[in-house]
């Protein structure tokens, strides 16, 4: 699903050149649940941004779904993001003036799905995450866990191949964190590749594989455990 070969990335801030990724080689297979760990400044967010087509890499080869990602037009990148990827963020990033249903439906708007259909689908997905009754509520009326569940519903409504989650539990208490992780695991169980960036060990250990980053290089990769794929999924495709 994802193949990285010798990926380099530098940022230029004023006269300084900051070399963030110094040759990353990584292979993530379809249906994997992977976490990327590292202290701040290790390059983990940068890696996620490159994986998420939110930023370009300077050097190396990036294959996404058998397609080589090189400098491409914004429009094309937007289309790929819309088709293949779903994002979950630490600060949820819901649009404050849209209610839960409208937030979840937004990716479908960019897929040109008719309004009625996309709202109906959004309510369905909210229902799956136990938020049906909150469909008409604005984000500021929701708790952190509820917001993150809305954000997750938004990330999976387009039926993506990969979910990229940047510190999805970073703003949540431990009980809610585990709930959110359970949801992500269920999503993964339905066959979607899930990549989680985190600095929390317990969160990382809920995934199949932990990729430790340090100073822009992969320091180690730890295989943890295999989830039971035969388990029936609550999140259908």
């Amino acid at each position, binding site marked *: 699903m994802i193949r990285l070969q010798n990926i380099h990335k530098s940022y230029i801030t004023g006269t300084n050149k900051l070399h963030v990724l110094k040759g990353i080689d990584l292979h993530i297979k379809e249906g994997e649940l992977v976490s990327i760990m590292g202290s701040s400044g290790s390059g983990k967010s940068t890696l996620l941004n490159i994986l998420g087509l939110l930023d370009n890499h300077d050097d190396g080869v990036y294959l996404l779904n058998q397609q080589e990602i090189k400098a491409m037009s*914004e*429009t094309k990148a937007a289309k790929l993001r819309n088709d293949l990827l779903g994002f979950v963020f630490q600060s949820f990033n*819901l649009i404050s003036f849209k209610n839960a249903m409208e937030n979840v439906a*937004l990716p479908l708007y960019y897929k040109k799905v008719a309004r009625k259909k996309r709202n109906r689908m959004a309510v369905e997905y909210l229902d799956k995450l136990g938020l049906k009754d909150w469909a008409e509520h604005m984000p500021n009326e929701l708790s952190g866990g509820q917001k993150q569940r809305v954000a997750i519903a938004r990330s999976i409504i387009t039926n993506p191949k990969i979910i990229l989650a940047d510190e999805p539990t970073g703003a949540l208490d431990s009980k809610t964190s585990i709930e959110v992780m359970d949801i992500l695991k269920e999503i993964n169980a339905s066959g979607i590749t899930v990549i989680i960036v985190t600095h929390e060990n317990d969160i990382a250990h809920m995934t199949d594989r932990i990729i430790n980053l340090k100073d822009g290089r992969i320091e180690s990769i730890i295989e943890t455990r295999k989830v039971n794929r035969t388990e029936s999924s609550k999140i259908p495709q």
Partner: protein
Amino acid sequence: MFDRDKWQEIFSTIRKNKTRTVLTGFSVATGIFMLIFLLGAGRGLRNGMTSVFAQDATNSMQIYGGRTTKAYKGTPEGKRIQMVNEDYLGLKKSISKLDVISAMSYIPGAETISYKNNFGNFNVSPVHDTYEKIKNFEILSGRFLNEKDIKENRKVVVIQDVVKDVLFPKETAINKLININNIKFKVVGVFSQQSFDENSRDIYIPITVAQKIFNNNDHLQRISFTLNDISVEESKGVVQQVIYKMADKHGFSKEDKSALWIQNNIENSQTFAALFTAIEMFVWIIGIFTIALGVIGVFNIMMIVVKERTKEIGVRKAIGASPASVIGLILMEAIFITAASGYIGLIAGVGLLEVITQFDLIYKIYPPAAIYFVNPQVDLGIAVGATIVLVVTGALAGFFPARKAARIRPIEALRDE
């Protein structure tokens, strides 16, 4: 562009950001309102000035006798200059490029004019037939005085429409006999005229008959004439010519500015034309600056909007919004706000002008000014043109912020710190 979903998207953001939208719209509406109102007011002023000015032919001059302020050849200052028929004849022969010339005498004493039981005090002016070409009359029925009336000392009269309404409220005036100081005159025409004086109630009779019956002398109150095809410079030459001739005849200094009062409408009309042009230019300058302010306002607020929505736009891009759709979102919002509020401003401006006209507000507030402010309307072309300009420039003002929005990189937008 007419994608229903896109409009719903735009309306939902507008609805959720009412204050910002209203404030943006207000600056635009004010801009177009000011422009429309100023253009309308300018037009009204011009209409008013033109109609007031139109009472005298623009190629005419008028001469009145004055009083000397300089001693001349033993005559002390303060001598009154009384024009007489001989002056009229002299000027008629000598003025170059003369078109028509008319003298006017005046009737001393009260002028009670009556017809049967109707009567009133009207201003009776004895003139030549040519006066018709010097003053702008509109003949409503019958005719003005003619050459025969003058030559044959006919007792005929032309009356203003308001006079007709007093003397003949229910019948036609033509060929009826009216009494002027107990002498019967036959009405040959009814006219209307523009005047500085709202209450002008004028009657004209042949100067020859007036001098014979009422004056018993050949005194003139004024001499008016028009000139053919004459430049402002030439008209000043004519003024000199008149002064020289009259100075010789009446014995006053050629340098004496007060011996004769000469009203040179050729020069005045040039001054007025320049004044109109200046007023119009002034209005356009104000209009352009108001539009510019409105546009800068939209630009400014759209920049803030983009800044404010950076994160939202980042999210949208992360979940698949193309740069074109982001540009569309911001641009359409800018155009919609400008167009809608421009329209409101337009309606308000036209409405105010309409109210002023309908309810005669100028007259109610300050009656003497009313005559200078006639029909303050903006033609539809200017109004629509101004709105289009505002929308187009509004779109331009929205375009740069929109492009800025499209260039937002999701990573930067989503960064928490």
